[in-house]
C-alpha cells in the first residue's frame, strides 16, 4: 500500500450483473490515478471480472459504461481520478 500512496483512493461501484465475477462485492476500493488504472487493478484482483470488462484488445467492452460523479467517461485511460471519487460501472441489461 505505501509504495502507491500517491494515487487517490477511489471506490468502484459494481452493479448486479458484474458482482458474481468479483466475489459478490457491491463495491471495491482501489488506489488509482486514472479510471483505466482503477479498472485494471480491479481486473488484477478478479480475473473473471477483467474478462467481462475488457475485450481481447484491452479496451473496455462496448456494453459497459463507466461514470465518474454521474458523468460518462469516454476514455478511461486518460480520465484522471481524485481522492474519494466514485467510479460507477453500468453494463447493459435486457430483462423485461
Amino acid at each position, binding site marked *: 500500500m505505501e509504495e502507491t500512496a500517491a494515487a487517490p483512493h477511489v471506490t468502484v461501484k459494481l452493479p448486479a450483473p458484474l458482482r458474481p465475477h468479483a466475489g459478490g462485492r457491491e463495491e471495491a476500493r482501489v488506489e488509482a490515478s486514472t479510471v483505466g488504472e482503477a479498472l485494471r487493478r480491479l481486473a488484477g484482483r478478479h480475473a473473471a471480472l477483467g474478462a467481462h470488462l475488457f475485450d481481447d484488445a484491452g479496451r473496455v467492452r*462496448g456494453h459497459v459504461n463507466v461514470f465518474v460523479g*454521474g458523468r460518462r467517461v469516454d476514455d478511461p485511460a486518460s480520465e484522471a481520478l481524485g481522492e474519494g471519487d466514485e467510479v460507477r460501472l453500468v453494463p447493459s441489461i435486457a*430483462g*423485461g
Partner: protein
Amino acid sequence: MADAAERIPGLFRRAEALELGTDELRRYGRHISMPEVGEEGQKRLKAARVLLVGAGGLGSPAAMYLAAAGVGTLGLVDFDEVDFSNLHRQLLHGTADVGRPKLDSARDRLLDLNPEVSIEAFGTRLTSQNALGVLGGWDVVVDGSDNFPTRYLVNDACVLLGIPNVWGAIFRFEGQASVFGVSDGPCYRCIFREPPPPGAVPSCAEAGVLGILPGLVGTIQAAEAVKLVLGLGRTLAGRLLLVDALGMDFREVEIARDPECPVCGNAPTVTGLIDYEAFCGMPGEQAAAGADGGGSDGASADGAGDTSDRITVWQLRHKLDEGEAPVLVDVREPFEWRICNLEEEGARLVPLSELPGRLDELDEDREIVVYCHTGSRSALAVRYLRQEGFVRARNLMGGIAAWAEEIDPDMPTY
C-alpha cells in the same frame, strides 16, 4: 396548457379535431383538473398512438397505466403465451390466463380498465423483416422486450422512423430507464455501443428478477410516454436512470448523443435493419433449431457434428434412442430440478457453482451433454469443462425449455 411543447409532430393538431364525451370527462376528471393537462392535454392522450414491444414485466404496468390514462390507441407486440412463471410480475395476466396468448389476456385486462381505448395486437416476433412495418405510424414506442437482439432492433427501427423510444430494462433487483431517439438526445447504441458477448449477461429467466421491479421501471416508462405525448416536463432523454430496489436508490447519470454512432450519428453506417441475432453473436432461429447455420455469424457451430460444442434437443433424443446416451449434467439450481428434469434420461444435478469442485465425478473420455433452463449457464459450463480437458462436453441448445417445447410437451415449464 401554456407550457406544453409539442414533441410528437402533428399530434396537437390531430388532438384538436377530437372531442371528449361526458363519460370521458368523468373518467379523466382528475387529469383534466390539472391545468398542465386540461381538456386539451386529455385530447392529446386520446389522439396518441403508443406501441408497447412486449406484454410482459415492463409492458404490464406500462400498458395498464397508459390505458387508464386514456391513451387512445395502444399497440402490443408479443408472441408468447402466459406461463406460471410470468405471474409474479406480469400483472396484465392472471392465473386463469395461463396457456392463453398474452395478447388475449392483455386485451381483456386493458379493455376492462378502460373500454375507451383501442387495442391493436401484433401476435408476432419482431424481426428485421417486419419491424419497420409494425413500428411505423406510431407516435411513441415503449421497449419492454427481454433480449438484446430485440432491443437493438427496436432502437434502430425507431431511429430510422424518427419515433421516440421509451426504454427500460431490468435485472434481478436493478433497473435502467431512459428515453432514446428524441431531438438531440442519444439513442440506445450511443450508450451501449455493442451487445455483451453471448451468455455474459444472463436473462431474467436465468438470473431471476424481483417481481416488483418491472412495476417500478415500467411505470416510469409509462410516465415518460405520457410526458412525450403531452409535451410536458423534462423527459429522461440525455439521462440514464439507475434504479436499485435493494438500496431503494434512484440515481441518474448523464448520457449524450455520440456523433460517431453508427445509427444516429453524423455519418451513419447502419441505414437499414440488419441481422440482430448475428449482431449479438447468437445463432439465428434456423441455427437454433439445428437446421443450418447459414445467416448466423459463421463462427458458431450449428450442432451438426459430433465434435461440435453444441447439440440440439432432437440430436440428443436421437442419441438416447440409439443407445448412445451421453453423460447428462444439469447445471441448474435444485429448485429448478424439482420443477422438471431429465432424470429419467439419466441426468444428474450439478449446480453451476458446484461444478469446479465436482469435476472428479465426470469422465474426460465420455461425451457430456450439459443443460440448464435455456442454454446460457450450460454454455458457460461447457466452455469451462472444455478448458479443463473435457473436450467432448456439449451444450444442449435452448436448454430444458427447448426439450419441453420440442420433445416433451407434458413437461412442466417455468
